[in-house]
């Protein structure tokens, strides 16, 4: 990613208050063009409210939102023809067919709504053969697929998706993941995705922001965040007793989380992991495996206190 890329979504000091509750509290984000941006946070952190404000479904109490460099409060609504979105549940006109729903929302966003194109997008999201069925006969996963189709049919530059894989089976999740990755990597689109499935975000996102109680806790590239984070590392030993004895009398003792039958689980950063390996080597203690569990989920739990 080129750091000089233009900001597609820039949020500055956003505040949203509901009576006495501050759902979004001075939130700032900068999402650059061509990234897949993961927006994470525990339930009630303010993710959906933020997305609703970006999409003009809600008004902010204060703060500024710029979309494609233009102030949302002052720009005309043409900017929304460049945005495709799915907010929370994929709700449609259940008494109409999938193709009619897609035609309607596509037309409103300026998409090519020829039969050929409608069928193409329904096929792309795996709804071929069910195009003319009323949405009320659809499962949650099928509605989710239709939701993705209506979000991308007008070829938007920015996709904002709130929990896009909700209700999908593993194959469906994989397909959507591949579709989104393709949109970013091969078509230069920007994808802003909120999800509670952290593994999913980790496997797709290039950048993430983690928010809690309406505030940004941290924002950066997934790689950088994981590199700087404390990870859980499991060391397995030939002689666990000896390893335990050596460790107990040193500062490494405070890094121990648990001691199991033949392994010790440590909380370490990258540098500490390297030093601890050298420590055991210096004591001639044989290690037969080291398993780092360095993922976004651990990191997320560390910084949000695990209240997801």
């Amino acid at each position, binding site marked *: 990613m080129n750091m000089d890329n233009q900001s597609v979504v820039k949020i500055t000091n956003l505040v949203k208050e509901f009576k006495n509750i501050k759902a979004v509290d001075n939130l700032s984000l900068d999402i650059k063009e061509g990234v897949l941006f993961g927006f994470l946070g525990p339930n009630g952190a303010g993710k959906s409210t933020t997305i609703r404000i970006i999409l003009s479904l809600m008004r902010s109490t204060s703060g500024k939102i710029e979309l494609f460099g233009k102030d949302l409060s002052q720009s005309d609504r043409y900017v929304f023809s460049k945005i495709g979105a799915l907010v929370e549940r994929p709700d*449609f006109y259940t008494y109409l067919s999938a193709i009619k729903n897609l035609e309607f*929302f596509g037309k409103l*966003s300026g998409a090519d709504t020829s039969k050929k194109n409608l069928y193409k997008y329904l096929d792309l999201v795996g709804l071929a053969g069910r195009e003319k069925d009323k949405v009320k006969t659809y499962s949650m996963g099928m509605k989710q697929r239709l939701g993705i189709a209506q979000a991308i049919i007008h070829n938007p530059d920015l996709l904002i998706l709130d929990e896009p894989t909700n209700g999908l089976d593993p194959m469906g999740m994989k397909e959507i993941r591949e579709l989104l990755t393709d949109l970013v990597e091969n078509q230069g689109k920007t994808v802003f995705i909120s999800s509670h499935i952290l593994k999913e975000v980790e496997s797709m996102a290039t950048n993430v922001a983690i928010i809690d109680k309406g505030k940004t806790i941290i924002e950066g590239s997934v790689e950088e965040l994981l590199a700087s984070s404390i990870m859980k590392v499991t060391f397995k030993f030939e002689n666990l007793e000896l390893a335990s004895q050596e460790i107990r009398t040193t500062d490494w003792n405070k890094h121990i989380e648990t001691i199991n039958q033949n392994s010790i689980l440590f909380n370490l950063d990258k540098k500490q992991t390297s030093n601890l390996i050298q420590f055991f080597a210096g004591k001639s203690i044989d290690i037969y495996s080291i398993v780092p569990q360095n993922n976004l989920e651990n990191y997320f739990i560390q910084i949000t206190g695990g209240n997801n």
Partner: protein
Amino acid sequence: MKNLIQFELFKIFSKWRTYTGFIVIGLLVVVIQLVMGVEGQNFIDAATSSMKSNFDFQGDLLNAYMINRIILQTLIVWVPFLITLVAGDMLAGEASLGTYRLLLIRPASRLQVISAKYISGIIYTFVFMVWIVLLSLGLGILSFGTGDMIVIGNSILIIPENDVFWRYMLAYGIATLSMMVVFTVAFTFSAFVQNSLGPIFTTMGLVIGFSILNVFNTGILEYINPILFTTYTNSWKLLFENPLNFNNIYLALSVLFVHIVVLLLITFTYFNKKDISS
């Protein structure tokens, strides 16, 4: 805007509840016409019996114009209830389905979206009234023919045959305007809630309540009744007076029109600022 209106109309006419009113009115008009076909002459004899000693009635008074007046007088009270079934769902239906989240993230502004919905609803109301005209007047003319129209009230008024049709067209125009006010009332309530039952029952309650107030036109109600929209539900009858009282007609039109403007201003202002939380 054109796309929005087209689709709103498509949505309205894709729902079964839209046809409830058409079916109910259709059945009622046909039943009234059948009853009048069988018992109409007896009805006219009973209505004119007290006057037969003083007047000599010539020709067939049982014709489509006379029957149409009975139909309009009987049905216009119930039409608001059928119209609110659709109007109450116009905005609240989007909220309860959750489709605002897909509708209001498009290039169309909220003002455009709500205008398209309102225009579509008004078209529905108009089509509904045309349906009543076609059945009551059209079918009536085919079944009973035309003739001079007798209007029996405090006095007897005979309107010549060639002077009736245009009066009916204008009468239906005023009736349609008063139904548009009912539609607008339900539409306004619909903007404030997330369930269509609320605006439907609230509007029905308002129509019933105001209609009761209209009956007691004394004391403070003398001042309140002129500004209630239900006062003008029967203003179509003003077209069957001789001479026409244009002041009363203009007053009815003005009050109904002001209701529409004020209610729409409230709806647009509220909806434009509304947070979509559904």
